[in-house]
């Protein structure tokens, strides 16, 4: 019996993710990593892994795994109906399956396995970066994922009380961005005073938001400049893009504001159609 997990179904999109590739921005390599970092870390802690070990990030459920040896797993983030391991470490006996249904709320479910997903790292990380193409390929049925050796002791908990990601309207904090002065006072007021709808064009690179058009006071081009997750970029359409995990290292659209870093995790759980509100 090999310490592996076999992918029986991969759902709409499942990738391997860890803490990403910080520190390589000067080489044009973006950070990537789990969209909901807090959920990924929690999943790891539940099975006694290093918090930044590689986990699976399933989008809208649909993931079915088979344990090829006796393993311990835990899921966090969006609650996929059918997972007995949600917010709880559970033994998955050799031959047993873990199947994630479509969550009622939230978008991304994290699956940690004790020992971590041990695919080969690329530039120090096992994260799949869908923008740059770095890291392991997107999961497909039939993939066999190696599982590493257990590193730390199991935590002494059966279940952690964590709220599920909410549906409906979500409010996060916004902080000043570097190019707030490129926009009209009306745009500044609309950013925090009006609702933003998450559109279906959203992905791991960013949330495309729809709402009141944010008007500029300055014409002209901005020389591309560095940005990190949480940036609210505003293209000429005036409809902002909230940058998530697979960020380009630099961008040429002015950034009007930043979602507070801690709150970006919650944005990574927003589904198309949900309403985002930004407050100062």
């Amino acid at each position, binding site marked *: 019996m090999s310490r592996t997990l076999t992918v029986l179904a991969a759902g709409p999109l499942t990738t391997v993710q860890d803490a990403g590739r910080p520190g390589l921005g000067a080489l*044009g390599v973006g950070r990537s990593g789990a969209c909901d970092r807090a959920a990924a870390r929690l999943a790891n802690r539940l099975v006694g892994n290093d918090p930044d070990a590689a986990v699976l990030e399933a989008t809208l459920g649909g993931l079915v795994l088979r344990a090829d040896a006796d393993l311990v797993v835990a899921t966090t983030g969006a609650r996929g109906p059918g997972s007995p391991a949600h917010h709880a470490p559970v033994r998955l006996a050799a031959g047993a399956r873990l199947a994630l249904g479509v969550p009622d709320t939230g978008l991304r479910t994290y699956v940690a396995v004790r020992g971590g997903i041990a695919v080969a790292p690329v530039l120090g990380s096992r994260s799949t970066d869908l923008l740059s193409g770095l890291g392991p390929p997107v999961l497909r049925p039939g993939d066999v994922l190696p599982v590493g050796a257990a590193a730390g002791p199991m935590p002494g908990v059966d279940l952690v009380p964590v709220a599920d990601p909410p549906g409906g309207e979500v409010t996060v904090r916004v902080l*000043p*961005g570097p190019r707030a002065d490129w926009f009209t006072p009306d745009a500044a007021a609309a950013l925090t005073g009006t609702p933003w709808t998450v559109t279906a064009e959203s992905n791991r690179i960013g949330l495309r938001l729809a709402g009141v058009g944010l008007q500029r006071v300055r014409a002209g081009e901005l*020389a591309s400049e560095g940005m990190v997750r949480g940036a609210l970029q505003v293209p000429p359409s005036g409809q902002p893009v909230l940058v998530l995990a697979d960020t*380009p290292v630099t961008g040429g659209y002015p950034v009007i504001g930043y979602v507070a870093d801690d709150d970006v995790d919650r944005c990574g759980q927003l589904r198309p159609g949900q309403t985002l509100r930004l407050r100062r």
Partner: protein
Amino acid sequence: MRVLPSGSAALLVELDGLEEVLGLYAALTEEPVDGVVDVVPAARTVLLVLDPALTSPAAVEQAVRRARPRPGRGGPGERVELPVVYDGADLADVAAALGVEPAEVVRRHTATAWTVAFCGFAPGFGYLTPDGEPWDVPRRRTPRTRVPAGAVGLAGPFSGVYPRESPGGWQLVGRTDVAVFDLSRDPAALLRPGVRVRFVDAS
């Protein structure tokens, strides 16, 4: 130097131009600021990404204001030579834009000492800036959907080498066999900020 806010986990430093960016980037990599996990130079800015658990934007701003920028060029930067076959599809267009013969474009491109100012667009895509006379080459009106890896191009004031096949709008003057981004090499990127580059005619 203007320090611009970038949320709770970063700080954007705006400078007068490329020379100042190169100088500050060199200072910040030689003497790293505590709690800063990434330093990203661009055309007129340097982004400092910080770990909010270790430091704050205010503390990083103080450290940046104390940094002593290095003279941007002429330092002991690593030197790279790139052999180029100058048979690019846009060589004639570039020559026309500059008002010279194609052979003169090749002569100037190989005679110029280039420095990597920053990376962007794709992993390992370095924006090379000339040490002497500035270049000014318009981008293609219509970007190509497919530019091969190793293509050597010009756009605006910059020259560059495509690290892998991708779409692209730069004017292509030639190609090199040197892999400018190679995951089996450490560091994977050959053209890192501060590296000095010479193109050699291998036509």
